[in-house]
């Protein structure tokens, strides 16, 4: 019964009605002028001392974006966003980039300490003995503050740095892969991101290398009225492996803030990328005031034969989530996986899912999605599984389960299944139910309160996905599930 005890312990620790990461860091920042035009883009590009080709790429994207209209097909409702009323760039004020951790503003370090993100390598090393080490790229508003374990990674040949640095240091790699999975004209938010992306992480794993440690990026929105537009690019060369974690938080504010990120993954022959996200942006208060609009384009390209990309996501935050991590299974025998837990409470709206596009021969994919809706929230799974005419022997298994807690929320499933070849074998299964009274009674009869019982049952419901998460995230996620569902019972 250890699991039960620890769950209860975790639930107890959580402050009632409080988003744990809702504090604000008082730090001076430099911003681009409000609004978006070519000058803003030039400003961002200049701040980052980017080469001319990068600026041109951004301007092209901006041109495309201007001719696009906001997508409205998702099952989410929000007032129209005024893209002129946003700051597109905000960075903690410092004259030069910090040479070492000692030069980083102590206020910033304290922020990450409060968030529980280890930035001091020694601290990490000295901390928990035997615990797996994680290299972190910390992104604060629009810029990457620090990247840890860089030297050690370098020894293995792994490049892990902020994307701004990569543009300067590894232009040939960036030019080759940036926009090759999510083109700059892909969709409204991806184009916007392409035009104004300010930072993010870049990872390159050379041929045959198994990345010696977990890589991780931690995103934090701090400044007011800013949008965060980060871009992540991960390239796994032939026969390599990398596991990557992403976490995010933001202060509690009454206004809605925009987060439009793009993540591109490229897996060449025999490479494997495991991408895990724990998304915990501020979800807004119980009446739906404030919160982050999370409009994200994530796509992985299994470009090489026998390559594999696996997405695992835990979505608990954000006022609105609009996100479909996808896999293009281009290489023969490639494999895509998607494991998701999406929890919505209060007035949150989630429209998330995946796309598995089978193009190569003998490709396979697996989708496990667990949606939990409570309060007045709406939780939609939207997914596409398609097999191209030449994708012989494509295989897919999809399971989407939804759990409803309370009678004011909605759970929806919108899968698209398209088989253009007879050799495709697709199976799709979806169920929706509530926590049965029997299960609740069983737990409560053994002394658990109703809320604890719900948390326990939900943890069981999402176990399939939880098991896919790296160790470091598992505990945090279990705790998160507790927070997210608080107040949803009774």
């Amino acid at each position, binding site marked *: 019964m250890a699991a039960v005890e620890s769950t209860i312990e975790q639930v107890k620790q959580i402050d009632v009605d409080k988003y744990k990461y809702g504090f604000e860091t008082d730090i001076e920042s430099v911003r681009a002028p409000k609004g978006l035009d070519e000058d803003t883009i030039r400003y961002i590009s200049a701040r980052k001392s980017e080469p001319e080709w990068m600026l041109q790429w951004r301007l092209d994207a901006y041109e495309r974006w201007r001719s696009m209209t906001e997508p409205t097909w998702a099952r989410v409702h929000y007032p129209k966003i005024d893209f002129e009323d946003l700051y597109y760039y905000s960075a903690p004020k410092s004259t030069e980039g910090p040479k070492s951790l000692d030069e980083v503003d102590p206020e910033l370090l304290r922020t990450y300490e409060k968030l529980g993100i280890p930035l001091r390598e020694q601290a990490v090393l000295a901390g928990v003995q035997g615990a797996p080490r994680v290299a972190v790229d910390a992104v604060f508003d629009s810029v990457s503050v620090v990247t840890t374990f860089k030297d050690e990674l370098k020894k293995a040949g792994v490049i892990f740095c902020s994307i701004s640095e990569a543009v300067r240091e590894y232009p040939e790699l960036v030019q080759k892969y940036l926009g090759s999975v999510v083109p700059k004209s892909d969709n409204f938010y991806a184009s916007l991101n392409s035009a104004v992306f300010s930072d993010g992480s870049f990872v390159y794993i050379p041929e045959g290398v198994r990345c010696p440690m977990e890589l991780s990026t931690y995103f934090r929105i701090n400044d007011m009225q800013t949008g965060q537009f980060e871009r992540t690019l991960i390239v796994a060369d032939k026969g390599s492996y990398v596991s990557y974690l992403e976490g995010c938080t933001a202060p509690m504010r009454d206004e809605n803030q925009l987060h439009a990120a793009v993540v591109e993954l490229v897996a060449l022959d025999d490479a494997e990328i495991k991408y895990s996200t724990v998304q915990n942006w501020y979800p807004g208060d119980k009446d739906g005031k404030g919160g982050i609009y999370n409009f994200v384009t994530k796509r992985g390209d299994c470009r090489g034969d026998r390559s594999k990309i696996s997405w695992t996501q835990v979505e608990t935050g954000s006022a609105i989530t609009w996100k479909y991590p996808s896999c293009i299974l281009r290489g023969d025998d490639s494999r895509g996986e998607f494991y998701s837990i999406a929890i919505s409470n209060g007035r949150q709206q989630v429209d998330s899912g995946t796309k598995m596009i089978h193009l190569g021969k003998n490709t396979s994919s697996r989708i496990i999605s667990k949606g939990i809706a409570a309060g007045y929230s709406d939780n939609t799974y939207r997914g596409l599984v398609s097999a191209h005419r030449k994708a012989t022997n494509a295989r897919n298994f999809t399971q989407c389960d939804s759990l*409803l807690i309370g009678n004011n929320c*909605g*759970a929806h499933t919108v899968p698209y*299944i398209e088989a253009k070849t*007879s050799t495709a074998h697709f199976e799709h299964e979806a169920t929706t139910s509530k926590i049965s009274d029997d299960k609740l009674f069983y737990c409560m009869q053994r002394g658990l309160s109703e809320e604890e019982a719900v948390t326990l049952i939900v943890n069981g419901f999402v176990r399939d996905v939880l098991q896919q998460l790296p160790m470091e995230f598992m505990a945090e996620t279990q705790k998160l599930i507790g927070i997210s569902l608080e107040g949803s019972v009774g």
Partner: protein
Amino acid sequence: MTVAVMKTKAEQSFAEGFSEVQEKLPGSTAVRAIREEAAQRFAELGLPHRRIEEWKYTDLRNQVKDALPPRSGEKVAMTIADVIVALGPLAHVDAHRVVFVNGSHRPELSSPGGLAGVNIQSLASALETAEGGNAAIAGIASQHSDAVMALNTAYMSDGAVVQVEAGAALDKPLMLVHIRAGKAPCFAAVRNVIEVGAKASARIVEAFVSLPGAAGDGQINTVTQVNVGEEAVVTHVKVAADAGEGVTHLSNWMSRIAKSAEYRGFQLTQGVNLARNQIRIDFDGEDAKLDLSGVFLGRGSDHIDTTLVVDHAVPSCESRELFKGVLDGNARGIFQGKIIVQQAAQKTDGKQMSQALLLSENAEFDSKPELEIFADDVVCGHGATCAELDKDLMFYCQSRGIPAEIAKVLLIESFIGEAVDQIDDEAIGEAVMAFARGWLS
């Protein structure tokens, strides 16, 4: 960015054709006004295209090239023997027949009247009276009016208006037979309005068939509106099996199920080049039961689309859907099924399954099973699969001396049999299976 959309040839012909035939179509002044309004609505909407989410996989703007002329007035000479030939296996079902040819009622081909507890009228004559017109137009069909429905409202020439009295039990099935005949290809818009009173029971078959030697092309737009009264039990089967090679079949079923009633629906679609079967079910009272199933068989360039919406608005109802498709050649099958459970509909039990068998490399199956759920105390689920014939099963049959061709037919028969078995009338079920067998061989 808004772009003025050019009207396609078909859209123009449908719009212009209406003003030509308007005068000849049956109906009182009130009905005429409604027809005009519908024609106007169609002119505004145009044919549905793939930018409309519900029509994502079936682009009528692209696939319906031209409008065929409506010929409700012209009479094709036919005998009862012809009707039996056209009906094929369905002729063996002992039923009370009401026959329509090219969208016009043919009393001389129908069974003579006198079915106890039932009042049957032709739509054309019902539309002449205010009461009949109301029943045909003001029902649920008008609430979900898309372009295809509007086209039907504008052009509908005939159909059956059936009223089963409360408590009546029909001793044999009522068969509404729509035959396509004659050398000239034509467009027929028909509407059947079926009202089953409380505690009554009825079996209704709608057949859309063609007479051998009929034109290869044809367009059918059909609407069937069914009201199932409290505690009534209705079996409703539609067979669309045409011999033509260029037939478009656009159909709408609109059924409303009252408290504690039971509604069993089944649709067979085969030999139709372009089919769109839309089904909308509304639960109107608690403890009602729905059992909906269907089989679609496509080959060549057939395109068969089944789109259904089951709306649970009230508590404690049960719905089951099972659809099976077999696709060969370049055929494309589509299944879109949406189960809506509204906030009030607690204790809903909904299950949906769609399965397709792809027999050739170029066959395609697209499915979109949707759940839209706003109530928490529900058990809902859906499943969708698609695959080729199981090689192990084929091997098993062949290893027991069954030739490959026969083994294939056997396996397909058992595959679709599961759906056909849902029909709770043996004779009708056998006829449906015979149709499918005919298609298979």
